[in-house]
């Protein structure tokens, strides 16, 4: 289950960027054609976050579809398959997108009395 390794990497990336800040929400983007199973990431997230700053954080996962276009009949459709078949029966289908594997944004709480723990390389106010 490669999702375990990927989830450990997610936790490592977030802790690396936010340090000791307490994380309460994580939003990921896992495309339908990425080869990563969101439910397996949710399962792994519950296993690897206890004892970290992400413990108890809500995990949100966006799952964008891929865009397909049939080279035989020209039909355009969205798909959750790497090798989709067109409704016309053709397997000659061009597929793009749907392979996203990203951490989108993270909600965290700065500690009482420490001021804003906004990381130096973070984007603007959320």
């Amino acid at each position, binding site marked *: *289950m*490669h999702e375990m*390794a*990927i989830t450990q*990497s*997610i936790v*490592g*990336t*977030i802790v690396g*960027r*936010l340090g000791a*800040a307490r994380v*309460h*929400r994580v939003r*990921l983007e*896992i495309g339908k054609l990425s*080869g*990563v199973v969101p439910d397996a990431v949710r399962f792994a997230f519950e296993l690897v976050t206890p004892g970290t700053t992400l413990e108890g954080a809500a995990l949100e996962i966006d799952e964008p579809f891929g865009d397909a276009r049939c080279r035989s009949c020209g039909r355009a459709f969205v798909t959750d398959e*790497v*090798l989709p078949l067109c409704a016309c029966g053709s*397997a000659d289908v061009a597929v793009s997108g749907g392979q996203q*594997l*990203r*951490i*989108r*944004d*993270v*909600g*965290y*709480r*700065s*500690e*009482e*009395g*420490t*001021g*804003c*723990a*906004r*990381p130096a390389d*973070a*984007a603007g*106010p*959320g």
Partner: protein
Amino acid sequence: MCATCGCGGTRVTEPGHGHGHTHTVDLEADLLAANDLLAARNRAAFAEQGIVAVNLMSSPGSGKTTLLERTVRELVGVRPVVVLEGDQETVLDTERITATGVRALQINTGAGCHLDADMVATGLRELAPEPGALLFVENVGNLVCPALFDLGERARVVIMSVTEGTDKPLKYPHMFRTADLLLVNKVDLLPYVDFDVARCVEYARRARPGVPVVEVSATRGDGMAEWVAWLRTLG
């Protein structure tokens, strides 16, 4: 919003700006960023030393190790060869490779189902391939997980054997869609099994249009010259 820092926190400012509140930060980081960074380091180190790394991936039992034993013998005197062997347990494959006279190192992943760039980097420190070497990385036998992990390799070779199903490329498209070469192994068994090479190749090319294919028999030697010639094209 916090009036002092403008961070979107739920409380307004307090004296000394000593409040606790929530923030959202756009990380926009790749989920595989840590692995990809290490893979890029491996790739740079290979380029610097003229090492060509080939990542061999397949399901268990496709004949990867037998193919490697034969391949390294074919390359004796041609160029230096070293092998990193990935398996969950045992050093059996490394023993088979070292018996050919080639240096090999075993990486046991334990519960892990794939090699990652960090494991390869660690293995390389011990194996220390000579400059200009051809490095084979025999991944863990698995047609799913290794596909997503860049090791810093120059090329990815997916091996199928004719004792597997013809439709495997359709069932495991993630593995096939990044292949630089498909080796169809055990072709000596074709008279005895129901395997359609042409259809298998067609399926593989749906996942990876135009992928070159070499039919081999690691036990009998068919196709070995063509396979070795392909390896030479890698530099």
